[in-house]
């Protein structure tokens, strides 16, 4: 594509890359330092917990255990040695060590199992909410004097402020207690790509997905409507009408294509918020994704798992944001070419 490597685009790419690197850097550093600022020593906590649960262990075994745990926690050496060791492990080998609550399963394996569930839920619900919300918002904004536009806006106004998990709670109460149609916890049946498995996945994911889609749509409807009404008054839309173009063409080719630009930007900004909401929703439904994994990790003081899941979360969100940011120039020729 001629002009793609234009200076403008390169500057844009570099600036987003800088943010990506900063986010990963600050995120990983924060995740590293916060636990170490805690007053309690995780190794001691672990040791005393094991001693409380099992019968007495002889001092030599306890000492060995302490050594192994310190090794696994990466608590050897000075703070800086630990830090760089951590960075090296995380960035280059994605090794977070073994899970302490499910010893000796490596943390990366646990995350690997949970991640597809979360990604599946997040991707489908975010995309659906964005697409549906934008479509409704476009119609509502383009024909803002019609009654259905006002009704749609009213519904969106009621839906948008409700947090995902509040709605999730309402759904849980409704569907699991009052009309027990959907399960409260996730029990998946079947394996592989069998129909039974797929249906089971959908059945179990339905409630969390619905809560996220419905509430998410609210926001996109509102922002798209606002953007659309703004664009509909722009000179080039008026001129398109003067040229005699059909309303349909104006809506799709002129308004929609221009309105999509700020919506894509908005999407990249909202990813963090959407992800946070997804975590709580997962926990409430005991959905086998990363959110529940974080939750259980914290309940069981599984230090390695905590570090692993949170680091992966930050990495995932920042990568997704970066990718969407990179998508933007392909939609807006003003960034692509001088």
């Amino acid at each position, binding site marked *: 594509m001629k002009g793609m490597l234009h200076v403008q685009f390169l500057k844009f790419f570099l600036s987003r890359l800088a943010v990506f690197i*900063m986010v990963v850097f600050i995120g990983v550093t924060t995740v590293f330092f916060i636990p170490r600022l805690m007053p309690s020593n995780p190794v001691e906590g672990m040791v005393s917990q094991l001693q409380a649960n099992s019968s007495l262990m002889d001092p030599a075994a306890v000492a060995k255990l302490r050594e192994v745990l310190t090794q696994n926690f990466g608590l050897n050496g000075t703070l800086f040695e630990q830090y760089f060791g951590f960075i090296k492990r995380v960035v280059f080998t994605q090794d977070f060590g073994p899970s302490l609550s499910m010893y000796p399963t490596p943390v990366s394996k646990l995350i690997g199992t949970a991640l597809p569930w979360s990604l599946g839920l997040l991707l489908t619900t975010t995309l659906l909410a964005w697409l549906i919300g934008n479509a409704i918002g476009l119609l509502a904004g383009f024909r803002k004097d019609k009654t259905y536009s006002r009704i749609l806006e009213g519904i969106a106004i009621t839906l948008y402020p409700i*947090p995902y998990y*509040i709605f999730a709670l309402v759904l849980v109460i409704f569907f699991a207690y009052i009309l027990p149609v959907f399960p409260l916890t996730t029990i998946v049946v079947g394996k592989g790509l069998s129909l039974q498995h797929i249906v089971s996945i959908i059945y179990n994911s339905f409630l969390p997905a619905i809560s996220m889609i419905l509430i998410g749509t609210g926001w996109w409807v*509102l922002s798209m409507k606002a953007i659309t009404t703004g664009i509909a008054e722009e000179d080039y839309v008026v001129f398109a009408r003067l040229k005699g173009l059909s309303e349909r063409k104006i809506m799709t080719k002129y308004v929609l294509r221009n309105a999509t630009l700020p919506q894509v930007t908005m999407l990249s900004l909202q*990813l963090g918020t959407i992800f946070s909401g997804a*975590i709580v929703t997962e926990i*409430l439904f005991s959905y086998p994704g990363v959110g529940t994994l974080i939750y259980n990790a914290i309940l069981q003081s599984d230090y390695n798992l*905590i570090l692993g899941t949170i680091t992966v979360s*930050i990495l995932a969100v920042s990568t997704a944001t970066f990718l969407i940011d990179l998508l933007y120039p392909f939609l807006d020729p003003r960034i692509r070419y001088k």
Partner: protein
Amino acid sequence: MKNWNLQLKIGVFILAIFLIFGVILPLFYTGNPIEWGKFPKNLKPSSAHIFGTTNLGQDTFWVLLKSIQNSFFIGLLVAFFATLIGVLLGMLSGFRGGILDRVITLIMDTFIVIPSLPILILLAGLLKGRASVLSISLVLIIFNWPWPARQVRAMALTLRERDFIDTALFSGESTFKIITREIFPFVTSWSLANFINTILVAIRTESGLAVIGMSSNEQATLGTMIYWAIQHQAMMAGRWWWIGSPVVAITLIFISLFLILSGSQQYSALRRGK
């Protein structure tokens, strides 16, 4: 007030009800509403206990009010400081430009991308539910100042081009005077919108944390109230007042805040002559 549109009126009305119930009424309550075992457990609503009692022997109604009070406290605290910091940094960044702008923007973007909840969960989880309201508020402030900053910066960038700023500059006014006298009127309406939005986000994030037990569990906030209710099987036992009232309260508070936000934006657009 007569020029207020319907959204604004409804929003303020609902919010006012909650403010009266949540902030003013609890001042009249003697004693600690979240004290356990004060009343018999699980009573149905009656004239003595309007919403009944909880599984912990508390009067549901007064726990609810205390929760509203605390949630508002967190919301207002975070909103105040986040908006203050955000507006100042945003204006500084937008007006000065150059390297200062680049650095602040980079920090802004970084904190926007990092999802706050995992970090909050990490913090709260390690403190095992004993995180104080203040520490959670602090983290919320750190993660929420970029949003108003971003908006104010964009505004500052456009305002910088406008003629009346140049006029002030060329007639020798100091940067500070320019910022406070010429720019501030524009910024106030945006700051108000950001303030209200941040209240919303703060309460939403804290309640999200609380619902999964990662907030300051000793304190009563709307989120922790829901958490306690879930922990004590309020849903399974059908104790709808205990879990239902905070859910309804949160929903209504959010709707009212949003209506005020949306209504005030329409109002200022009207005043600008759109």
